[in-house]
């Protein structure tokens, strides 16, 4: 009986909407890791990541379902955590480094109209050394996909596409030749 109720609730969530999902941690990529090592990018610390507005950091919605950041975090914090994971996997994370990577989340969006879905994520990234700003640049990633009228397909797919953008944005920054050059110039 209990399983039956759970199943019905899940069915309602998937097909009609009305559920909340938490964003999931992303895996580091070998491409970024190799580039960071080969380019001898110096280790850096992760500073603050903040949302440009309260709405941007809070949640995104598809139909009647929402996706939110992990507990006690906003989406900007989650972006910072994704940078931390990617740099940590490459052995380039050092909380004592004078080089500090920070960001402001300026765009966080996902939408779909039954036929087509789109999502985008944007951030202003700053690299500073001993509180002096050495590099500042805006980054943006977006994705499009074919959506579906069935909520059970459309909702998880939209959230997956949105979630993936964090990995794409982090990789775009860490693989940007301008960012690498600035880090090397500013690094120890």
């Amino acid at each position, binding site marked *: 009986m209990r399983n039956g109720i759970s*199943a019905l609730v899940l069915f309602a969530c*998937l097909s009609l909407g009305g559920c909340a999902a938490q964003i*999931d941690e992303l*895996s580091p990529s070998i491409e970024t890791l190799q580039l960071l090592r080969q380019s001898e990018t110096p280790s850096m610390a992760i500073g603050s990541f903040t949302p440009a507005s309260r709405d941007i950091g809070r949640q995104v919605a598809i139909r009647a379902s929402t996706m939110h950041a992990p507990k006690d975090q906003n989406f900007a914090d989650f972006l910072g955590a994704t940078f931390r994971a990617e740099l940590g996997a490459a052995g380039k994370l050092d909380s004592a480094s004078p080089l500090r990577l920070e960001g402001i989340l300026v765009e966080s969006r996902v939408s779909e109209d039954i036929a087509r879905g789109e999502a985008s994520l944007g951030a202003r990234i700053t690299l500073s050394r001993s509180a002096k700003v050495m590099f500042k640049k805006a980054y943006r990633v977006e994705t499009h996909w074919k959506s579906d009228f069935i909520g*059970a397909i459309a909702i*998880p797919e939209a959230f997956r596409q949105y*979630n993936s953008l964090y990995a794409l944005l982090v990789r775009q920054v860490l693989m940007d030749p301008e960012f690498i050059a600035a880090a090397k110039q500013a690094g120890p």
Partner: protein
Amino acid sequence: MTRRHIKLHVALLARFAALVLAWISVEGAAEAAKWYVDNTLGEVKAEEKKVPAQLRPIQLLFEFQRDGTPNPKATKVVKPWAIEDIKQTGAFSEISETPSTDGAILSIKFNNIVKQEELDKAKHDGFRAGLSFGLAGGVVATDHYVVTFTYIAPNGAPPITSVVNHALHMKFGTKAVEIPGTEAKNGDEAVKTVVRQALARGVNNIVTDPAFSK
């Protein structure tokens, strides 16, 4: 069938499983579906298996993808299985997610490919089967997996890569069709078998590569 199991199916086989789940009772669909592990890849035979003379630690990067983009929900579910499966191969002395002591890395991208024409057919068949609770016709859906292994040696040698293909078939309804797979007890077991076979094959391909022992 617990909610965790149903969510697992949705996470791993989102498109096809969700189609069936959308048309009929979730619990009924998940239990009525039959799962088959494709026979083409199979197990690594004892005579094929190679264990390196000197075991080294590796840093593991594992990502489950759909059509080449990250599927973090599925990664979360599958990664612990993958770590255990790689341990079972006996090819490495230690597996960690942080940089290894000598810098060796094994990256695995487990990519679930969705073929649009198959998805459209599954939708059509799933609708018909769902309305009749599986009594009229049925749906056979195949999830294709392309698993890419990249090994980076500590000595800075060029990466060693291997690509392994695998597939998982799901059948729902009364459709009489021969499926080129071995039936699994349930969805969980089917997915675990696909992961284990693909990883065992890929790791064996990597350690068998002549460049690996250099």
